[in-house]
């Protein structure tokens, strides 16, 4: 029997070779899963756990999804910028302020680039940051609770794209603007863009203990488009590099007009020099209006504060702070290798990769070898800073990560492939197709000083024939490559939610042990919490009714409430009394114009209901919590507005 099986596999394998390897240079059947035990490499047996966490941005979903590697299993969606009906984020009365902005309540965004906090250039797993691209914001998410703890809005910015990348010791999270805009915003002709628009690069300091964010300064750069960025590492720590496009400063039909210059720039910013300048009183305070939203874990409540000014810095006033490195051609990715020596500019309209040398850049600066200037900022000579060029023959390089063994991996959007090449010699070692149109790729820790170079995840924009069709819209696809050998091996692909632009990966052993299991009831400082069922009560304040409710398997206290009237605003403040891992309860009220709540053990959340009709209306637990989950329910009696029925409540009568 066994013998036949092998024959079948051999037959099947050779069939794949003829049908499936058209774009494999006819090399071998090395990407045949059957022939190479790839199934084993990604199989995580029931009860076993993945080796890495992967955090993928949601793009237009506005959130962050958590996957396991190598299994590709999705563990969680973390609500960040967008409404999320599963847990009522944005509808829980306490967390609504998280989505406040200077434009009002904005319950959606376009989340692009997650980055995990670092210490000494290595992932420390305390927080993960992610940018809101559309309404410029940066969010900080706790990696113990996997909840969004803080969101800061970025003024003077638009298209917050070259974000949210983090310096070696999480000193700063950067938020660079993709669209330059008038600063301050004003009514002016669009075609007077040139020289009038500004590109703000915001440096947001991170409190080392609590992670709290604050805009330390905004560098007011010429009106280019700042696309992606990367902090220096190791020897180049203290510098930040930003790719630019549209150095033409066109304001219309950019696909042509912003693609005229043969070279755009990588802006090299010495933030340590600017920090010193600012610490000595430099910079200019400018009126601004932006929201700073903070979630407090002990009160389970968010507050939103409007900030009124921001410190701006004119780069010309800080000599030695900013230089331009000419880079072909409309570079997208801007990536620094783990040693900090090489700055890789991926010219998305070119076939080659341009690699700058940090040492040569410093030499050129010291030797004042400039090739003119742009808006007063010195331009270094291309040949003086160039370390080498990767002649790849691919098309449209986008983004590069590193395996920590001297190799780099670059995605090519137009030719849909991942190319592995060697740092220093610039030779291409391997290339593998992706399915299809790959954007960013990710190696766990691959943008830090210490990559965990076991897997590459490629994030594709187009899915087409990879999975069963689901109508015109398909979820995007991620592809997993084993990179432990000389050649990359495609071992798995899996769908992803939203449009993942970038991802951050970290070994599970760095996060799993400190992941929180419950919120402690004895640390619950929510003003409406009831920490003992005896504390349950209903209080009327004018036309507001506040219900202090507790829940535990499998009942609410109280479960019968009378004396509510049409026109009242009824607040359910519900505390989950469980102190057991993974026992949330849900809450939903009939006809409520919000979503359900999901309340974690020890947590308090509030929900609003405005009853419109007299009657006896049920509420229930939405999370199947126990054998008696169906019994976890209650009623609110609603009387006409002019009724004089007294408030009363009960359980078990």
């Amino acid at each position, binding site marked *: 029997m066994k013998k036949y099986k092998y024959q079948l596999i051999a037959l099947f394998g050779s069939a794949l070779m003829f049908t499936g390897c058209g774009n494999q240079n006819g090399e071998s059947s090395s990407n045949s899963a059957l022939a190479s035990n790839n199934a084993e490499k990604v199989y995580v047996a029931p009860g076993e756990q993945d080796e890495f966490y992967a955090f993928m941005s949601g793009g237009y979903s506005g959130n962050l999804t958590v996957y396991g590697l190598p299994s590709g299993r999705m563990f969680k969606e973390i609500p960040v910028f967008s409404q999320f009906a599963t847990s009522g984020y944005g509808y829980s009365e306490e967390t609504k302020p998280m989505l406040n902005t200077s434009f009002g309540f904005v319950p959606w965004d376009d989340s692009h680039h997650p980055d995990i906090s670092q210490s000494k250039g290595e992932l420390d797993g305390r927080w993960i940051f992610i940018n809101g691209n559309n309404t410029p914001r940066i969010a900080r998410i706790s990696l113990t609770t996997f909840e969004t703890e803080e969101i800061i809005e970025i003024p003077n910015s638009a298209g917050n794209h070259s974000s949210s990348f983090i310096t070696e010791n999480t000193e700063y999270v950067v938020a660079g603007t993709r669209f330059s805009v008038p600063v301050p915003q004003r009514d002016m002709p669009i075609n007077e863009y040139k020289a009038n628009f500004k590109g703000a690069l915001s440096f947001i300091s991170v409190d080392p203990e609590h992670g709290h964010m604050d805009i330390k300064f905004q560098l007011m750069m010429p009106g280019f488009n700042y696309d992606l960025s990367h902090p220096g590492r190791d020897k180049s720590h203290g510098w930040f590099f930003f790719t630019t496009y549209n150095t033409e400063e066109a304001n219309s039909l950019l696909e042509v007009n912003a693609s005229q210059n043969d070279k755009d720039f990588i802006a090299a910013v010495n933030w340590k020099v600017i920090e010193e300048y600012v610490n000595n009183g430099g910079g200019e305070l400018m009126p601004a209006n932006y929201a700073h939203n903070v979630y407090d874990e002990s009160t389970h409540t968010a507050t939103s504060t409007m900030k009124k000014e921001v410190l701006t810095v004119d780069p010309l006033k800080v000599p030695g702070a900013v230089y331009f490195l000419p880079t072909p051609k409309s570079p997208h990715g801007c990536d620094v290798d783990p040693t900090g020596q090489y700055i890789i500019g991926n010219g998305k309209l070119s076939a080659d990769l341009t690699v700058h040398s940090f040492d040569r850049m410093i030499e050129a600066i010291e030797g004042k070898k400039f090739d003119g200037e742009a808006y007063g900022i010195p331009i270094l000579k291309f040949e003086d800073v160039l370390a080498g060029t990767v002649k790849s023959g691919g098309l449209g390089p986008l983004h590069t990560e590193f395996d920590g063994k001297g190799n780099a991996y670059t995605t090519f959007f137009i030719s849909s492939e991942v190319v592995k090449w060697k740092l220093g010699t610039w030779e291409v070692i391997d290339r593998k197709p992706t399915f299809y149109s790959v954007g960013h790729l990710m190696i766990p820790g691959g943008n830090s000083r210490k990559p965990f170079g076991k897997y590459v995840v490629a994030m594709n924009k187009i899915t087409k024939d990879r999975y069963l069709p689901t109508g015109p819209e398909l979820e995007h696809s991620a592809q997993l490559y084993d990179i432990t050998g000389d050649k990359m091996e495609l071992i798995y692909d899996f769908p992803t939610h939203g449009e993942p632009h970038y991802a951050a990966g970290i070994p599970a052993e760095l996060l799993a042990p400190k992941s929180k299991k*419950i919120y402690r009831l004895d640390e619950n400082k929510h003003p409406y919490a009831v920490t003992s069922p005896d504390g349950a009560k209903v209080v009327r304040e004018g036309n507001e009714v506040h219900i202090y409710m507790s829940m*535990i*398997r499998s009942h609410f206290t109280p479960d019968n409430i009378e004396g509510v009237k049409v026109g009242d605003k009824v607040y359910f403040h519900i505390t989950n009394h*469980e*102190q*057991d*891992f993974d026992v949330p309860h849900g809450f939903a009220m009939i006809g409520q114009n919000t979503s359900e709540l999901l309340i974690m053990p020890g947590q308090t959340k509030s929900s609003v209901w405005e009853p419109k009709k007299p009657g006896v209306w049920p509420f229930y637990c939405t999370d199947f919590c*126990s*054998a*008696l989950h169906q019994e976890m329910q209650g009623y609110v009696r609603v009387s006409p507005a002019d009724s004089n029925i007294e408030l009363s409540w009960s359980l078990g009568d």
Partner: protein
Amino acid sequence: MKKASIFMIIGPLLLIGLYFFPLWNIILGAPQYPEPLGMNIHIDGIRDMNEFDLKNIDGLNHYIGMRTLPKPEDMWEFSTFPIVIGGMVALGVLIGLLGYFGKLSYKWFAGWFILMSILGVLGMYDFNAWMVDYGTNLDPHAIMKLANPDGTPMTYKPPLLGHAKMLNFDVTSLPETGAWLMFLGMMLTLLAFYLGWKNRNSTTQ
């Protein structure tokens, strides 16, 4: 006799461990509890093995109508046992000291051992009786009333020692550090008696 008396002093002192370490441990494991729930029985009360275990055990037990686990003030045992143990330690040490100075016969060592054994057996008997009551005296309004195959109401008495299957739970009941120290201490007093007996003629009695 001096050597025997030293063992007789050390032995009862080991019982002091009962004030710091649990006497008994009961673990409830099930597939949906990859980290099992457990309770540690100390001489002055029942405590969590991991934080919130008692709360969660009570939460499960209420489905089948078991009472909540007793707080120290709910049972006379938890105030009496520490006094009894303290008394036995003091008595043992006193006997040992008097033996050391030749004021007492080694036979007193056995006397202490026998008294301690009787108290231990009584303690076990009491513990078992409590578990029988706890596991069979169920709330008549219990949410779930389960019957054995022969039609009699199911009871939930944990095993006094060893493993038992209760519904989907594996229940394991074993002595803990405090009990082992007590056992070792009692063995030392037995050894003291033996040494005293062996040397009964060589010393001045």
